[in-house]
């Protein structure tokens, strides 16, 4: 999947979380993370490999705490900013 398409989906997920549609956001986030892992090489070139690993870890940790606005910020500004 192209970076632009991933970014578009990332921004949509961030919007879901900011509007309170957590179920939609979580549902779409799971498949986005899968696809980001599939495209790790391409994304690593854009974002930086070590940095990407760290922020993916942050997303998973934040998801466990239901810290969705933080996840929205990571996706919108740190990965696809």
């Amino acid at each position: 999947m192209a970076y632009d398409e991933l970014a578009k989906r990332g921004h949509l997920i961030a919007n879901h979380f900011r509007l309170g549609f957590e179920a939609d956001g979580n549902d779409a986030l799971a498949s986005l993370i899968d696809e980001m892992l599939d495209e790790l090489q391409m994304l690593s070139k854009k974002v930086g490999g070590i940095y990407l690993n760290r922020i993916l870890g942050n997303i998973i940790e934040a998801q466990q705490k239901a810290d969705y606005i933080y996840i929205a910020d990571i996706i919108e500004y740190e990965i696809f900013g």
Partner: protein
Amino acid sequence: MGDILNDNLNYIKNRWPGLFSKLERHKRNVTKVDYIERENQFTLRVNGKQLTSLYDRDKEARLQVGSLPENAEEIAIYGFALGDALAQCVSKSTYKIRQYIFSIDTFLYALKIINYIPIFSDEKLELIYADQAHVISTPFIVSPVCVSEADSDCINFRDEVQVALATPFIRKKFAESSEMHLEQISLNYKHIEMDADISELYSTYDGNTVVVGAGPSLDSLYSKIKSYQENGSIVVAADSAVKPLMKQGIEPDYIITLDANKSIINRLLDIELINQLTKAKLIYFPVSSEQVASNWNFRRYCAYTDFSIYDELRKKIMHSNLFVSGSVIHPAIDLAVKLGSKQIMLAGCDFSFPNNKSHADGIIVQNNNVVSHPSRREIINGRSEYVYTLPNFIVYLRDLERYIKLYKPGHVNFYNMSRDGAVIAGVSYSDGI
């Protein structure tokens, strides 16, 4: 900082004295609120959750306010956050604004750091504490963290807001499973044509009925259920509760199955278990897994719901409706009511995870990871303690409460046999009888 807080509070005291007295009476620091900043932006962290964007709060508020229709006469904002969405609504629009506060600690922190008097002085604004709110008004926008971290006084309305937010997703998911449902309708057609209508059972009984779900509290209730049955009570069981009941020597009088998913149903009501039954009658829906009806050895009753998926079928074969709203507990309770039961005892109907368990022991479908589940919520149990739950359980619970409200005490009395699960409005506790 103290001056900003006092100025804000004095303004509130003059304009909304009722709200001011609630702010004064509120027990402080129930909610953990921390200040966080990044470059030239700041926000709060509420119980460990970031309240707003730490990159661009204005953009986030524009997104929220932009989701409102332009021609609205009145809008609601659920959750104050840092007042960014409210500020935009006040500055740009002519509609009336009902701003609901869900967390007083968070609100007071915001009042401490930002002067809100220019916003609060807008005549279109009404500032309300959400403890007395019951009905969702539309259109609305939310500050998700304010709502999720609501004060205990606002928990019921928090659930209403979260149900309203989750409903489109639940409907979408239901529509996505329509292919599986249509397949089961087609497979079940021969049974639907032949089997008795559920209404044959209506008004045939006026005693005590025990409705059994598969929640964890069931573990401690077997001897009581057995004693009720031995004394003439009817037992209506959800499909998921049959295996542990049979293991304890309790055969339900009626078993209700709803799930279309073969792989789940095969684990709950397998052929070996069905063959152990000696009398139980089956109540199924056209979307229920067809294998159960096919394997059943005793009388079967077919029921519909008011869902549109049955519209075509209804034209060809008529069956009566039972109330369904996502959980098999709903039709089990509706059957108990329609049988004519005067007293309905609920067992294993927890709508939550007492002791962090999803189901009673002996049920193969277990999900005990609620502690780390991203969508977990807290709800109050019968001992006024918090227990974990999930948004879909809250939806099922609130829909059941709306259903129970239709029946006045005295006509049908509902009792919960355990205090371990979520409090169900309109249901007393059997230990109080």
